[in-house]
């Protein structure tokens, strides 16, 4: 019975020793992933910004145009319009006016409108869960002009079924893969938008672009204006200068003429990118310092667990030696050497702690994540801090980082290590008791009652 309790107690100590490194490893992996994701995002954005040096983004609301209207991902990679902010529109005649500004090469209008259908979603965060209602998808009206299509890749490029939109198309849709899956519609099927039926001509792949902004429908801008009741209105313009050197002057003219519009140039975008990089760096630094803190805590806890385990073994073995003094006396009287006696008690201590190790692995493999989350409370900060930035870029998968923490599998190396530690601590803890046992005078021991 006593042995059983001791083994359970040891088991918990061992489980702590096993779980904590696991938690740490999981945290490190999470931090690593975070860094990689951030780096990828930054690089992608940098590339896109560089490709579009001559682009000036004009939009009616501040939330738009930050990075969302980059050419290759025109309708994708952005939050649905109306999510958290009002949809504001611009009269499309402003586009014609801008077109007349000197050195402006092209003005490409876009209309973005959230779908009439909405969905309720429960979002769980480390700080609790809440339910929000948001549009099911975004409708993007694109000006289907062959010059625009060819020069500015205003349409999604990764078509996986059917074909892309082309000049003059009307009454047809290009939809994102996840939307096609959501509604179970394929190429050739019909889909109702604002009560008007459209035919799906193509599906583009939206994976790797986040789940929030990727449910999307592309159509001719005139169709979009008609069905959404926004005839004559657009959401934003992509203004292309003839040369990079004209960008600033054009932007200045536009800013002067239309003070209520938001104008974003290459430099603005770079500044934004820098800001974002700064934020990332800060987040990563936070994550790192959290990790360092966690590791310090873990080290302390492991030391405590090691000391506790050794002390348990030590006291139990001291008690055992005391309890079995007489037995030791007998063994010595019938000719057992000090070494025989010592090794016997050492072996016993090692055996007990080895069994503790087995129990520890059992407990650890069941409750490692629980134990490490219990013992390392800072882990949840990762999920929280990374989640904050998720909606701003589409290329990371929101939610994965938070859930990755402390869920690493129990690996065999760690188990082997745990056994090694068990043997070591068993030997360490029983060293002194065994030595004392071996030194017992047989005569005294035999008198002991």
């Amino acid at each position, binding site marked *: 019975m006593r042995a059983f309790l001791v083994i359970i107690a040891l088991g918990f100590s061992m489980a702590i020793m096993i779980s904590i490194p696991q938690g740490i490893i999981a945290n490190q992996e999470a931090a690593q992933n975070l860094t990689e994701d951030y780096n990828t995002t930054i690089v992608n954005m940098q590339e896109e910004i560089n490709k579009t040096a001559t682009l000036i983004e004009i939009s009616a609301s501040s939330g738009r145009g930050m990075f969302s209207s980059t050419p290759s991902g025109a309708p994708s990679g952005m939050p649905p319009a109306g999510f958290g902010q009002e949809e504001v529109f611009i009269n499309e005649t402003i586009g014609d006016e801008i077109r007349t500004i000197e050195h402006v090469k092209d003005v490409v209008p876009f209309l973005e409108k959230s779908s009439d259908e909405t969905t309720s979603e429960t979002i769980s965060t480390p700080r609790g869960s809440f339910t929000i209602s948001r549009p099911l998808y975004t409708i993007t009206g694109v000006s289907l002009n062959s010059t625009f299509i060819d020069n500015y890749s205003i349409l999604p490029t990764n078509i996986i079924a059917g074909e892309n939109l082309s000049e003059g198309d009307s009454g047809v849709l290009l939809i994102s893969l996840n939307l096609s899956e959501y509604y179970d519609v394929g190429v050739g099927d019909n889909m109702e938008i604002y009560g008007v039926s459209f035919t799906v001509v193509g599906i583009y792949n939206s994976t790797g672009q986040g789940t929030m902004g990727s449910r999307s429908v592309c159509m001719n801008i005139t169709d979009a204006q008609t069905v959404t009741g926004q005839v004559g209105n657009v959401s934003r313009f992509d203004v292309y200068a003839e040369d990079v050197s004209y960008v600033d002057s054009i932007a200045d003219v536009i800013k002067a003429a239309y003070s209520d519009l938001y104008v974003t140039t290459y430099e603005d975008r770079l500044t934004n990118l820098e800001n974002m990089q700064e934020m990332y760096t800060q987040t990563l630094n936070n994550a790192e310092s959290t990790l360092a803190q966690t590791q310090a805590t873990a080290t302390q806890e492991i030391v405590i667990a090691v000391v506790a385990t050794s002390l348990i073994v030590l006291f139990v073995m001291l008690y055992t030696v005391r309890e079995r003094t*007489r*037995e030791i*006396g*007998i*063994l*010595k*009287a*019938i*000719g*057992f*050497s*000090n070494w*025989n006696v010592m090794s016997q008690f050492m072996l016993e201590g090692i055996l007990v702690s080895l069994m503790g190790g087995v129990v520890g692995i059992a407990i650890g493999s069941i409750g490692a994540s629980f134990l490490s989350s219990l013992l390392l409370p800072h882990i949840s900060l990762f999920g929280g801090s990374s989640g904050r930035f998720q909606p701003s870029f589409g290329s990371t998968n929101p939610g994965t980082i938070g859930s990755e923490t402390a869920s690493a599998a129990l690996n065999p190396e760690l188990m082997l290590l745990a056994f090694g530690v068990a043997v070591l601590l068993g030997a360490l803890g029983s060293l002194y008791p065994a030595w004392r046992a071996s030194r017992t*005078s*047989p*005569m005294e021991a*035999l008198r002991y009652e």
Partner: protein
Amino acid sequence: MSELVLETEKLDKVYKLGGRQVRALSDVNLQVKKGDFISIMGPSGSGKTTLLNMLGCLDKPTYGKVILDGVDVTKVPEKRLFKIRKYKVGFVFQTFNLMPYLNAIENVELPMDGTKKSGDEKRKRARELLKLVGLSEREEHRPHRLSAGEQQRVAIARALANNPAIVLADEPTGNLDSKTGYEIIRLLGKLNIDQGTTMVLVTHDSHKAALASRMLSLNDGKLLAKEKEGAHLLKKELICPHCGREIQPDDEFCPRCGKKL
């Protein structure tokens, strides 16, 4: 049969008890020949156990020599003393001192741990010894399932395991009833005769002491000069198993206590 198995020279033992010196043994000169069955008698506190501990290498004398089977054990370093205990001496205790978690045969095998004997040889030897003490039927029993007398028999078998030069029995009948006690003494006597095992029996019971071949008395740590000749009755197995008194070879009932033999 004149070879000396055990010899002590001017054996002294002084204990310190609370700053006071107690002389437990003083100038003990003892000679035990091979095949002897000697009894050492004395009141409690006379130094019997101290002497026995000294003879069995469990304790070191303050002064003097203990020569066991030709070796002066007082000069053997502590580290190697266990070998003397293992191979030269067999102990039989008042409280049997069997390992409670080992069965009879394992208890007998215990002193053979660490010897060159293989597992089979140990088992064979232990079996022989248990047969010798009349416990062949009880090999697998643990001590708590054996009677006190049976436990002491196992202890005797254990003492003989490594074929020691001498068996030291410290009040072996102290925890036994009278009849069982005599049976144990008879067994020791029988082993002395059949196996030629040299025996030293320590007791405070003069009846039992008188059954040995030589009777020594210890008083206040001194061996009394006059040594009595024992009854030798053990040699003829002519003692009553119930009261230990002398009987005749053809007696059916003990002439003293009247019980059936």
